[in-house]
């Protein structure tokens, strides 16, 4: 049965691989693995795309006895994939024109041990926020060792990773006669320019497979189980995982992001700090230094150019309890030197960020403003924070934005404040106006 598969795919191959590893087990050759879904009830071969790489590779294998400085077999299209990998690998090994030594170090989530996974600040402390030139992809799920062959392009930082287990590799038996198995998920690693491979939710499936295999029941029952499994495989692979667990993980991540304390920063390499993006509602509250300056009127310091002017509601101190920022820092510093350019510069403490055990994160700003912080949709593309220095004609990349957050006013506080304000307004207004209707 296995021969069937191989022969259909090896049209024109010089020789069929003799030592085709064993029996029904779909472990043999990764891409050629014959899953039960491949075979129709009659046992004949379902039409299935099977890459012909192994056969080509066999030819190349023979040729590559001599170390290949250049890419062999540029002629065969299909061999190009392999040739590319080999060519790059050859270059990498030769290390001739490459001045970047970092490339040779194994990198990827498992290479440096637990420190590298990078999900939480605790674990990723030593890593700089800038990926060095060659792949130090910090733990993207597809980075199963990205860069191990010194080939893949670096990946973006992700806060939450589902680290696909490396067990994938184990399932496939040793390559037969030097045939290199390329799991489609690992295509990424072949080369700098290799495309992204899609991630699959494999975790649950893996566990099931292992359980089933360990269970030495009769062949028929195994087959049945595999069938069921395959149905589930399909579901898991394609379905979006909207389970509860994801939310919890997210909240945990928030905690991790902000609860970075007492971490004795080893090297004072600045770039390890992660950049976060916060989206506040408009208008961002205006802050002024405590000591009144010459122009104490609040300036529209914070809003983006098209934003509205700030609303100065000088209301709060009387009605609401003063901002409970219990920070001990004294505020009696002298007036800040105000650089009157287009925007006066503001600098100081405006509140505190509170992290709760449940994962809720709140921002308590002065003047009784309480805001909820939640994770926003994380984009899959690159985002950089950049400083544009027109005077020096420079564009500084400050780093990649790791995570986005949305800040919204806490509803209870907001409603309470509205209520109070309405009451105050009502009290201030003359009650004898018959047109007014007093409500509630």
């Amino acid at each position, binding site marked *: 049965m296995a021969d069937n598969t191989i022969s259909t795919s090896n049209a024109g191959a010089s020789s069929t691989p003799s030592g085709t590893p064993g029996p029904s087990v779909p472990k043999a050759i990764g891409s050629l693995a014959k899953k039960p879904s491949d075979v129709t009830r009659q046992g004949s071969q379902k039409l299935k795309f099977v890459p012909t790489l192994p056969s080509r590779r066999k030819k190349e294998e023979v040729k590559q006895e001599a170390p290949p400085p250049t890419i062999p077999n540029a002629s065969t299209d299909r061999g190009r994939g392999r040739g590319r990998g080999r060519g790059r690998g050859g270059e990498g090994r030769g290390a001739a024109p490459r001045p970047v030594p970092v490339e040779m170090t194994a990198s990827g989530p498992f290479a440096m041990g637990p420190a590298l996974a990078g999900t939480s600040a605790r674990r990723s402390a030593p890593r700089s926020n800038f990926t060095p030139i060659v792949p130090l992809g910090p733990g993207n799920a597809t980075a199963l060792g990205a860069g191990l062959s010194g080939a893949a392009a670096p990946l973006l930082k992700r806060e939450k990773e589902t680290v696909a287990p490396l067990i994938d590799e184990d399932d496939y038996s040793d390559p037969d006669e030097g045939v290199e198995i390329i799991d489609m998920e690992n295509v990424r690693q072949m080369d700098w320019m290799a495309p992204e491979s899609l991630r699959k939710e494999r975790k649950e499936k893996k566990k099931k497979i292992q359980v089933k295999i360990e269970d030495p029941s009769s062949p028929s029952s195994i087959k049945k189980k595999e069938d069921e499994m395959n149905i589930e495989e399909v579901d898991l692979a394609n379905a979006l995982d909207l389970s509860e667990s994801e939310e919890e993980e997210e909240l945990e991540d928030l905690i991790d992001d902000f609860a970075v304390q007492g971490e004795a920063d080893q090297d004072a390499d*600045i770039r390890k700090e992660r950049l976060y993006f916060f989206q506040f509602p408009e*208008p961002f*509250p205006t802050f002024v230094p405590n000591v009144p300056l010459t122009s104490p009127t609040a300036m529209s310091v*914070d809003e983006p150019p098209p*934003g509205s002017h700030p609303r100065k509601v000088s209301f709060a101190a009387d009605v609401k309890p003063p901002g409970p920022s219990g920070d001990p820092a004294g505020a009696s510093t002298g007036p800040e030197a105000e650089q009157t350019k287009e925007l006066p510069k503001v600098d100081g403490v405006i509140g505190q960020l509170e992290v709760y055990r449940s994962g809720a994160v709140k921002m308590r700003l002065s003047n009784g*403003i309480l805001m909820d912080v939640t994770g926003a949709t994380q984009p899959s593309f690159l985002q*950089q924070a950049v400083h*544009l220095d*027109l005077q020096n004609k420079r564009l500084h990349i*400050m780093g990649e934005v790791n995570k986005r957050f949305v800040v919204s006013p806490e509803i209870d506080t907001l409603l309470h404040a509205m209520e109070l304000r309405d009451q105050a307004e009502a009290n201030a207004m003359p009650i004898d106006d018959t047109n007014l209707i007093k409500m509630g």
Partner: protein
Amino acid sequence: MDDDELISVLPIHYSNSLSPNLHIHQFPLLSRPLQTPPAAAVSGKRIRARIKPITRRLEIHVPVDPRPEVWNGERSKSLGAARQEDDREKNQDVGKMKQMEGEEPRLIEVRMRSELIPQEGAYMLGVVRNGQLHLQPINETHQFRPTLTYLDVMSRKSRRSRGDAGSDEDSDEGPPPDPDEPPPVQTAAKKEKKPLEVKEVQVSARKVADDKGNLQGGLSAVRREMLLAIRAEEEEDWQDLDFCDGETVEGQEAFEAVFSQNEEHLECKSDITAFLKGIKGL
């Protein structure tokens, strides 16, 4: 929520020392960090940037990986020629062509052009350091996408070479007709094709023809504005910028500026109700 235990508290610092020059750059079609491919870095190519300060448009030029396994040299020559022509037309020539082959210009870089995106709400950049959260307002958001305007040049060339006979089919495939260009044969063809249609259709067709045909009078105000804006932008010159990656000294200085220096507590002039009142239309 009352028994929700407080785990940690971080004071929030706010500073706008970098305003109005702090941007977020997004690369929607890119999922890897922006870096020179090692193969190109070897030959000394770096990422470059330039800006049109008035129009607020940025371009980032990323060198391409020229290895033969992943790059078609032949095609790069033809595309390079098209790009050079396109550059000349639109005044976006990259002045310094150090690698002046003289014979054939090649495509050696991907040009990513920025779009200024309107911001919803106030964006802040936050960095946590020493148990403190430092916020800086973000002034502009740009999205970068590769520009492939040189393909227009190529299609025009091929269209011309194919002659007017093929222009009908070309116009179906190609981009919508540019109002700048003289109206192609289409409109006449359209009219002829639909002689029996209801009157309304004919009337509208004529209107469209007028718009495209008459550059001066017939254009609607909006369209004219757009054209003017485009022209103004094209005429503005590019200013080159040094693209400093994170590791440079200047970059470090800029990064340090994110952090607020002052420990002073700021007084807040606005109230939480301002958020509700700030919603437009409510």
